[in-house]
């Protein structure tokens, strides 16, 4: 069910300080009443005075999600001029996400990019001179959202969603053909058949929802790129971090030709680790592609791990790498420090200094697993200090996609309910259409034209 009450995370998506989830629209108070529990039990926030703040808990049924302060702001003296609720929670990424998801579960929908600002403007809250910047916000955020939803959606998941949607549209087309041409197309026994199809499709959607729970729809986390010359130990580092023999580790330089990706959880901080082919001048075309990709993934990196092989000297390849790191949050690892050192920490420092950089440098050994704890601590330290963070739009997009999946599943449940209630067949297609539209929001496809095409191509109608 579409609603006009929107919700979003209003603060930066980092693990520091306080997080704010904001909700705006007619149903804001109704929703907060369902999920807020005061310290002394029942308290209805819909009944408290405007512009007051309340201590309590956000709960999903019996489950307490977080201890919060809730700010109740009644229309019209709010940013959007609508009823608004602000939930101040602990700043953890996971906590913020779970509160946002709870708010959505109880009736809000994820805000479109720039939607709060848009509403503020349309409701006369923002001054005319700011109109252009409102449009810019909408455009900028939307560009990213479009890109992330269409391009970053994992290929196989996207195909699965498309497939489910296609199957739904096929059923709608059948029903509609039979309604338009009842004398040609019979619906006898169809309800039973549809019930089975709905069960199968629901299972597939549940699987997809599970993937979204695990953040697999769009990869969430700090994009961490490991870079260095061939055989500097990048793959070993990745394996040490993830605790798996994931990348192929040999002592032959240039083994990692493609990018390997792994999600690593460091005490609640998700790293999206990308291992790249080593950078060095190469004529080998396969490897050349790997090098180009490495450079490309650097551009998306939130954190760079630069692996230096202490057993070799710094050469022009290292110079090239250093040239790419000036505006990147970077940790330099001096690997193989258990072996005889051709390159020392001081030598690395001076190279960095020459280029005006002061990235931290740690001496480690991946083979002996020396310094692993220090690396982890360093990353955590940087994250909590707010030096590194990740693009929060991905997380938001994930929440949005998940809510579309959930709505699609809800719609299929309504179809099942209609079948069980022995409603006439035309009622089935009402919720099937909603389901296909929700999925179309993820895949970027439009329902009406697809439906008409399916009707005409699959079912023979007419005089």
């Amino acid at each position, binding site marked *: *069910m*579409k609603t*006009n009450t929107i919700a979003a995370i209003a603060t930066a998506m980092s693990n520091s300080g306080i997080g704010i989830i904001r909700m705006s629209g007619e149903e804001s108070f109704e929703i907060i009443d369902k999920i807020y529990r005061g310290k002394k039990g029942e308290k209805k926030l819909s009944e408290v005075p405007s512009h007051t703040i309340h201590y309590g808990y956000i709960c999903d049924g019996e489950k307490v999600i977080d201890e919060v302060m809730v700010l109740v702001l009644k229309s019209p003296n709010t940013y959007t001029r609508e009823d608004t609720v602000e939930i101040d929670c602990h700043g953890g990424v996971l906590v913020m996400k779970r509160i946002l998801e709870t708010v959505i579960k109880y009736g809000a929908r994820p805000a*479109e*990019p*720039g*939607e709060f600002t*848009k509403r503020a*403007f*349309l409701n006369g809250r923002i001054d*005319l001179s700011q*109109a*252009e910047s*409102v*449009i*810019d916000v*909408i*455009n900028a955020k*939307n560009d990213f959202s*479009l890109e992330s939803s269409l391009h970053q959606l994992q290929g196989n998941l996207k195909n699965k969603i498309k497939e489910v949607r296609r199957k739904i549209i096929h059923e*709608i087309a059948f029903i*509609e053909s039979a*309604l*338009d*041409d*009842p*004398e*040609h197309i019979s619906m006898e026994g169809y309800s039973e058949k549809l019930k089975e199809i709905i069960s199968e499709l629901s299972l597939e959607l549940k699987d997809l929802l599970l993937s979204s729970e695990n953040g697999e729809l769009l990869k969430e986390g700090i994009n961490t790129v490991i870079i260095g010359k061939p055989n500097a130990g990048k793959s070993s580092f990745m394996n040490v971090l993830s605790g798996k023999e994931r990348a192929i580790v040999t002592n032959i330089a240039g083994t990692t030709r493609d990018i390997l990706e792994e999600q690593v959880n460091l005490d609640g901080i998700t790293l999206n680790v990308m291992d790249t082919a080593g950078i060095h001048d190469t004529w080998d075309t396969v490897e050349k592609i790997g090098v180009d990709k490495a450079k490309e993934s650097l551009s998306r990196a939130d954190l760079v791990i630069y692996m230096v092989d202490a057993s070799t000297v710094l050469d022009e390849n290292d110079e090239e790498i250093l040239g790419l790191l000036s505006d990147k949050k970077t940790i330099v690892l001096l690997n193989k420090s258990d072996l005889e050192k051709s390159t020392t920490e001081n030598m690395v420092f001076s190279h960095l200094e020459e280029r005006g950089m002061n990235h931290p440098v740690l001496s480690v050994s991946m083979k002996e697993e020396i310094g692993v704890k220090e690396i982890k601590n360093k990353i955590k330290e940087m994250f909590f200090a707010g030096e590194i963070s990740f693009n929060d739009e991905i997380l938001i997009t994930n929440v949005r996609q998940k809510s579309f999946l959930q709505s699609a599943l809800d719609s299929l449940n309504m179809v099942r309910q209609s079948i069980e*209630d*022995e*409603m*006439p*067949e*035309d*009622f089935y*297609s*009402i919720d099937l*259409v909603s389901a296909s539209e929700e999925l179309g929001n993820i895949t970027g496809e*439009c329902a*009406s*034209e697809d*439906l*008409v095409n399916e*009707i*005409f*191509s699959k079912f*023979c*109608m*007419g*005089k």
Partner: protein
Amino acid sequence: MPYLSEEYDICVAGAGHAGCEAALACAKLGLETIVFTVSVESIALMPCNPNIGGSSKGHLVREIDALGGQMGINIDHTFIQSKMLNVSKGPAVHSLRAQADKSGYSQEMRRTLESTDHLTIRQAEVTELIVEDGIVKGVKTFSGALYHSKAVVLCTGTYLKSRCLYGDVINFTGPNGLQAANHLSESLKENGIELFRFKTGTPARIDRRSVDFSKMEEQKGDERVVPFSFSTDPEEVQIDQVSCWLTYTNKDTHEIIRENLDRSPLYSGMIEGTGPRYCPSIEDKVVKFSDKERHQVFIEPEGLYTNEMYIGGMSSSLPEDVQYKMYKSVAGLEHVKIVRNAYAIEYDCIDPRQLYPTLEFKGIRGLFSGGQFNGSSGYEEAAAQGLVAGINAAMFCKGKEPLVLDRSTSYIGVLIDDLVTKENREPYRMMTSRAEYRLLLRQDNADLRLSKIGYEVGLIDEERYHWVVEKEGLIEKEVDRIQHVKIGANAVVQKILEEHGSAPLKTGTTLAELIRRPELSYDDLAEIDKDRPNLPYDVVEQVNINIKYDGYIKRQLKQVKEFKKLENKKLPENFDYNQVKSLRIEAKQKLNLYQPVNVGQASRISGVSPADISVLLVYLEQMYRKK
């Protein structure tokens, strides 16, 4: 020699289903109206199937009637069989379809036109449009007569540069061998109007005496006939009905068709026009659905006083000799005699995106159009547009606000919005799946939805409107009462429930809750509803539906509320969207091309994204505040 013949308020070109509605609406609204036709005998001609209504088309007829149009009344007087389709399904898709006595239908409409004040019928071919400074001034006919007028409504149907084809035979005529209109297209192009070429087709007509009905299944009409018009007394339509007959094609039929495909103008490339996918020729069906072993064929009478019968399901443009072979392969048609050949017809029509939702041309003030000329197909679609075009031509002359029906009000609104907003590559047919709020847009409540509009326009009289208002009140009151009637779990109640195969009550409930059970209805529960008032049938029907589908109806009402928000945001006329810098290039181009009337319409144009709509909303607000 051109000469000035007469002056009228409104000229209507064409007297088919669109032209008749347009002309009648204009004349009834007091405007001096002249309607041109190439042949007076062809007024309200049904050159294809002998039915009015059918799935979703029946809705259109009901809506036309509620707005004060003629089609419903006309078919109520001239039908020979009637059926409510989809009765086993939900009320939203119930749809009336009647077999018409074709010549009766045509004559009845002609009589109505002839007896309407302010309406003149003229047999003449309109050849030129007179336009000065972007405003229409009248028309010129083939004889050189000039007719000046304030508004013109084009309803030329399938007659513009039409040609009929079967095999390698081409006749440069309109349907049924009627004279084509070969000149107007040029004049339209000179006035900057963009034309499409569409095609459609019709099956053969055969002699009833040559048909062996013993090999076919009889298809009877409903025992109790429901009239189309809300103004028709239901008792008047309980007539003796005639039957239709069902038979099937078979493997032999399909083989004959396949062997001769190369002789079909469709497959030889002789036909250029785009045909409708929903109304495929039998050739198309055999090719596209090659796995189907048989297709249904309906043999339908063309009228009471003719032996001609229509072969529903087998339209074709195959050569005459193949038509004989193909039809004779069908059970019951072994000795069939063809009266008229099947043929395909090609004609000029417009790209309807040149129209406003009022059906006025964006480029030429006072010029309106309706029907197949606008790229639609079907009698009902034509009549619906003709009515709206006629009403708006009249409003234009009177200097009043035009009538625009949005998608939440009616199938007519959906039809027109689709035509003027979406890319249309084939003749457009109404389908229930096109109406997103179809639970609200039922054929049974068309009067409740639209009579007020018909009354305000001036086509529905005081008396009829007052009954609708009264009916509305009765429904509301009864729905409210039903929701408050408490039903206890007593023996009488349990017995009634058992009789209807419904589970017994465990605790008390309301009457409304019981009506919501699929196996029960309002009528079934009369016995346990002591205070039930005596209400007319149509009120009871509404009460039952409103109670039974309450949840779904409320959901759609909520969706409509959202829909209206964008629909109510008007966009300026002739606006240059290049001024809105942040719109994407494709959106700018499309918006400039379409010039949508409101943000809702803009949002339905393909190539305009939700982000573009946000930008547009912000821009509008900005403009509004600057004023």
